């Protein structure tokens, strides 16, 4: 509630004071000034420059005309020769020319009105007389399109004649659309008004409005936040939901913090309840085919062309073309505005719902008391995953939050949109959508914008912004990098389509773009474990770069990582060493890239069983991070964790455990309990406890970690599998083998399927299950597993690899035990 007793979020201009309306008015001052200037001219000259403001419901028309009204009233007080008559917003009772004249006369706000005559001709004369005495009458008339529709052609002619011949009235009108009565050449009011379309609010304008409202509420934190890049980015994610409508933005202003969620949901539901009868009444005026089209547009999350729409609806294209044209005229549909539409065949137009909020009329009908999708969309877009889980809210709101939170887990559109707007990412898998986007960007490069236009609207809009700045190459790289982050460094069937597209991209481009595509191709080939091809492409690309170019070093590093994942430490380590050597030659001692490179090499040493080589590198790295960064900086935390792991590998658990405990404490404090990095830390500490013989301390941590990974990434993700394996190991150490064995079995089965039978992690699983079998006396099964594991270790890691040696030792032991049993 505002100081003057008006609820800002309900935003009903007719109930607000002049001063408050002035303070909240943003973005359209130029339009207001122009209207006021026309009124000023009418007061002094015979000029009657009638105004028409066109915009959908909630576009701010009433706010603007309310200000016109107040300003005219102020002018009247200062003696200007004007009068004002503000007709009711919903003109249901104005059904003829006579009714219109009567309404103008009845609402004329000046002096004694006397008796208002009955017949139209007499009221015309009455109004002329009044204007003659007191100056022209400024008539504020909302929903003019509806009134003109009621007047019919002859009534419109009479009105136009009155306006032209007598010059007693000056209309300041609003309309939701420019329908036939305002735009057909045969119509009396064709081209009559000076028309201004109230364009949807841009993000900047919306920010200005929300800032003003926040200032009015005294909410300084929100004011400051809206001025930040992140605040603007967050606004961009919800622009497509608000449809650029100030009234909806004003409503949203009530809940820019979690604390306001209850109020927001309540307000939105009320607002939507208000709007729904309007939309449904408008819908009932449409023909059957028109309604079907509108329903289809409401259901889709992207624009559509007539051909595809005809196909979906099973109707004739020609008749649908006419229907679309009618729906555009009636304000239900609009051609999509996108910078890429200029590439379209001129006969091909993409359409979308003109007012996003019209979806409500369908959603409310179908919701049957369930939460409204539009509100859930807003929550998913505006709030971060962490925000939604930690608020105390009412029952209805809780239901919405639950759905929004589930959306964060599963909705790729919101995940990609937030990523493109540089907001904290959500947990939903994005790969399939990223694949679609890359395909669309590739086709767009070939001047075919259609797949791009068919992308989900929020994603498309976010991409359009990025295509403008920083540009198409950057956007494509960003999409590839996001996809690379999704697939990791383990061979994956989805990689082939990326490789194919990247080859096409490279072949179609030249200069800097070509080398960029080339590097990306090297990266993908490495991820797919097509190492020889990757090395070849990388060498070719590297010719175009300096040896120490960040991009090249990044790909080399990634390639080495892929080697590691593939168990090819023999190639990973030299590559890491070479990269570090370059970094040491060209970068300062504390340069972050140099530190990262050293860290990576150390980890590879660890994996190769060379913990003692790794430890000095990691100690040096941690010291450098702590020197240049805060102790809680993520880079320092990773480094501390790695050093602890190296201590653990080297058997120095007394040094490892305190470091793991510090790292976990810091991550819980900085990142939160459910952050992936926190889970990694918790897992590492638990493993160290296990190795130190403290299985009972380890098990609760590992159970908690596994549950969190399953929720975050699903049951088959490599991190989940590692976690399951670790829990099984801890159960084993604690003697709870009946719980350990099923976990080992399921882990091995999934790894064989997902990673392949020879992958190092699969081999680890096989080894671990064999040990568990052996412990419970199932020696035949243990030996069989170890034999196959050992053969694979020798093949993949080599005969001297520590894992190979351990497997060998285990197998010998079980064979001996089996013989002694016999």
């Amino acid at each position, binding site marked *: 509630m505002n100081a003057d007793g008006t609820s800002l979020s309900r935003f009903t201009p007719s109930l607000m004071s002049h001063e408050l309306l002035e303070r909240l008015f943003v973005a359209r001052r130029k339009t207001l000034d122009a209207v006021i200037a026309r009124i000023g001219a009418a007061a002094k000259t015979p*000029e009657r420059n009638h105004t028409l403001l066109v915009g959908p419901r909630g576009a701010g028309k009433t706010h603007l005309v309310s200000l016109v009204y107040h300003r005219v009233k102020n002018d009247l007080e200062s003696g200007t020769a004007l009068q004002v008559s503000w007709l009711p917003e919903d003109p249901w009772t104005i059904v003829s020319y006579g009714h219109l004249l009567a309404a103008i006369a009845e609402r004329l706000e000046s002096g004694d009105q006397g008796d208002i005559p009955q017949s139209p001709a007499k009221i015309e004369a009455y109004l002329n007389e009044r204007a003659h005495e007191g100056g022209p009458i400024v008539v504020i008339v909302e929903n003019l399109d509806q009134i003109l529709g009621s007047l019919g052609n002859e009534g419109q*002619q009479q009105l136009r004649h009155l306006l*032209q011949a007598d010059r007693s009235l000056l209309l300041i009108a609003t309309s939701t659309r420019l329908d036939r009565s305002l735009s*057909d050449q045969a119509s009396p009011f064709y081209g009559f008004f*000076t028309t201004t379309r109230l364009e949807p609010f841009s993000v900047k304008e919306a920010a200005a409005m929300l800032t003003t409202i926040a200032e009015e509420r005294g909410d300084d934190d929100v004011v400051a936040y809206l001025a930040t890049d992140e605040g603007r980015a967050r606004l961009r994610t919800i622009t497509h939901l608000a449809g650029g409508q100030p009234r909806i933005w004003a409503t949203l202003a009530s809940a820019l913090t979690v604390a306001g969620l209850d109020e927001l949901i309540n307000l939105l539901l009320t607002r939507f309840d208000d709007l729904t009868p309007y939309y449904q009444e408008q819908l009932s005026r449409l023909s059957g085919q028109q309604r079907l089209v509108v329903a289809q547009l409401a259901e889709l999350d992207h624009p559509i062309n007539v051909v595809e729409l005809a196909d979906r609806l099973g109707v004739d294209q020609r008749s649908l073309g006419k229907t679309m044209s009618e729906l555009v005229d009636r304000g239900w549909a609009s051609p999509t505005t996108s910078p890429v539409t200029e590439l379209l065949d*001129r*006969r091909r137009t993409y359409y979308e719902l003109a007012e996003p909020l019209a979806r409500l009329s369908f959603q409310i009908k179908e919701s049957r008391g369930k939460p409204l999708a539009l509100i859930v969309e807003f929550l998913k877009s505006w709030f971060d995953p962490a925000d939604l889980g930690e608020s105390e809210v009412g029952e209805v709101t809780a239901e919405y939050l639950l759905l929004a939170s589930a959306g964060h887990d599963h909705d790729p559109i919101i995940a990609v949109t937030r990523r493109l707007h540089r907001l904290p990412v959500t947990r939903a898998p994005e790969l399939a959508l990223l694949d679609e986007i890359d395909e669309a960007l590739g086709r767009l490069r070939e001047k075919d914008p259609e797949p791009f236009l068919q992308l989900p609207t929020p994603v498309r809009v976010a991409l359009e912004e990025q295509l403008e700045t920083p540009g198409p190459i950057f956007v494509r790289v960003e999409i590839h990098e996001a996809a690379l982050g999704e697939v990791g460094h383990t061979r994956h069937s989805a990689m082939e389509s990326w490789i194919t597209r990247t080859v096409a991209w490279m072949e179609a481009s030249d200069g800097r773009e070509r080398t960029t595509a080339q590097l990306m191709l090297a990266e993908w080939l490495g991820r797919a474990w097509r190492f020889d091809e990757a090395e070849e492409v990388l060498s070719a690309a590297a010719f175009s770069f300096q040896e120490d170019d960040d991009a090249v070093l990044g790909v080399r590093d990634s390639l080495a990582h892929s080697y590691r994942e593939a168990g090819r430490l023999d190639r990973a380590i030299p590559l890491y060493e070479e990269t570090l050597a370059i970094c040491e030659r060209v970068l300062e001692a504390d340069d972050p890239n140099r530190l990262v490179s050293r860290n990576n090499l150390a980890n590879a040493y660890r994996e190769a069983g060379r913990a003692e080589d790794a430890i000095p590198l990691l100690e040096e790295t941690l010291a450098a991070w702590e020197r240049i960064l805060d102790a809680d900086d993520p880079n320092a935390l990773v480094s501390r964790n790695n050093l602890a792991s190296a201590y653990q590998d080297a058997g120095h658990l007394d040094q490892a455990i305190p470091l793991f405990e510090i790292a976990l404490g810091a991550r819980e404090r900085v990142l939160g309990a459910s952050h992936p990095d926190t889970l990694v830390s918790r897992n590492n500490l638990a493993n160290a406890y296990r190795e130190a013989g403290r299985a009972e301390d380890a098990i609760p941590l590992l159970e908690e970690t596994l549950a969190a990974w399953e929720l975050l990434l699903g049951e088959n993700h490599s991190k989940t599998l590692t976690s399951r394996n670790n829990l099984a190991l801890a159960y084993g150490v604690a003697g709870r083998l009946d719980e350990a064995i099923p976990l080992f079995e399921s882990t091995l089965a999934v790894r064989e399927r997902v990673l392949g039978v020879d992958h190092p992690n699969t081999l680890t699983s096989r080894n671990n299950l064999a040990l568990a079998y052996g412990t419970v006396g199932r020696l035949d099964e243990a030996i069989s597993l170890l034999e196959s594991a050992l053969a694979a270790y020798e093949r993949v890691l080599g005969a001297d690899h520590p894992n190979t040696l351990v497997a060998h030792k285990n197998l010998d032991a079980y064979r001996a035990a089996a013989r002694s049993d016999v």
Partner: protein
Amino acid sequence: MDPLLPQPGSTIDPRNAVGRRRTTERARRELGAGNNLALNDPRRMGKTVWLDLFCADPGDNFEAIKIDFEGVRTCEEFLVRTATALSKHQTLPAQAMRKLKAMFDNVEISGGPVTVKVGVSTRASTDLLAETVRSVDDHLDDEISLVIAMDEVPIAIGNIASNEGPNAANQLLQTLRGLRRSGSKLRWIVCGSVGFHHILRQCDATEGVINDLVNLPLGPMEHDEAQELCERLLIGIKREGDEGAVEALVTHSGSIPFLIHALAHRLHESGTGQISASDVSTAFADFMDDRDDSRAVTHLVTRLEPLYGERARAAETLLDTVAVKDSIQVSEAGCKDDILTDLCDDHYLVERGGAVRWRYNVLQRIWMHRRRLK
């Protein structure tokens, strides 16, 4: 140079009307020579503005009254509209006013409305109209000619044909023709944007009822006047134009005042600062791409169906052909002669030396854009 604010439609202050000096001179000449005029350019070409401008300053020895007939549905309303306008004319001879008072109530009071007195209401409206007009003519000063500028006459005639039948409309046209023929001190300007040929067909009349009128073409503005309008509008919207901006505005608008105002309005709303020729080109392209705005300037597209009925498709095809080829021989038109004739009468096309082309380049371009022709 005084600033002007864009006003694509509505009712302007005649003092702010720019140009049309040659049209005004020609009108004075024709009227001085005893001719009556027809002004039937397409809508939004500036006819009403010119009528206001002319009536505000009709020239030496002329007085002028403008009567707007829009919304008139019956012969009686036509009569009342005429009487009301005449009664408001400040220098109407006293005898003429007495005559009006004898026939109509409320002619002297500003509270109106003017109505036909019961005593004469049984007489035909066309007879009363003739009597009213003649009473004015009879009492005018010998030195003065009174110009009656009738706006939107075809709309009124069309309404009357619909409401009272073709005969009533025809009778009214005959009466007006008779008045024009007989009036010695009266001069007439008959104005309307709906082509008379369509209305005559609607009320079974022939060209004979209007063929006494001399056509006064308005068309686009003269180049220097269009420049003046553009310059004043740019001053009005506080956006100074560079060297090429004014010329670009004139060129893109085809010197059609409505388009000049509409473009200036768009430029006013779309930004601030100096305007270049390229800004004007962008504004014009945006204007044509904008469905709502382009409909407002491509009125010719929406006009065909109501007036051409079943012939609309053939007419559109012919317009497409001429637009794409720029000019064709009449023999190539490939449609009935009446369609070509109507398209010329409606100002879409112009026929010269056996060849047909679009009358206005700018409308040709807009038509092509709207119809997506290449």
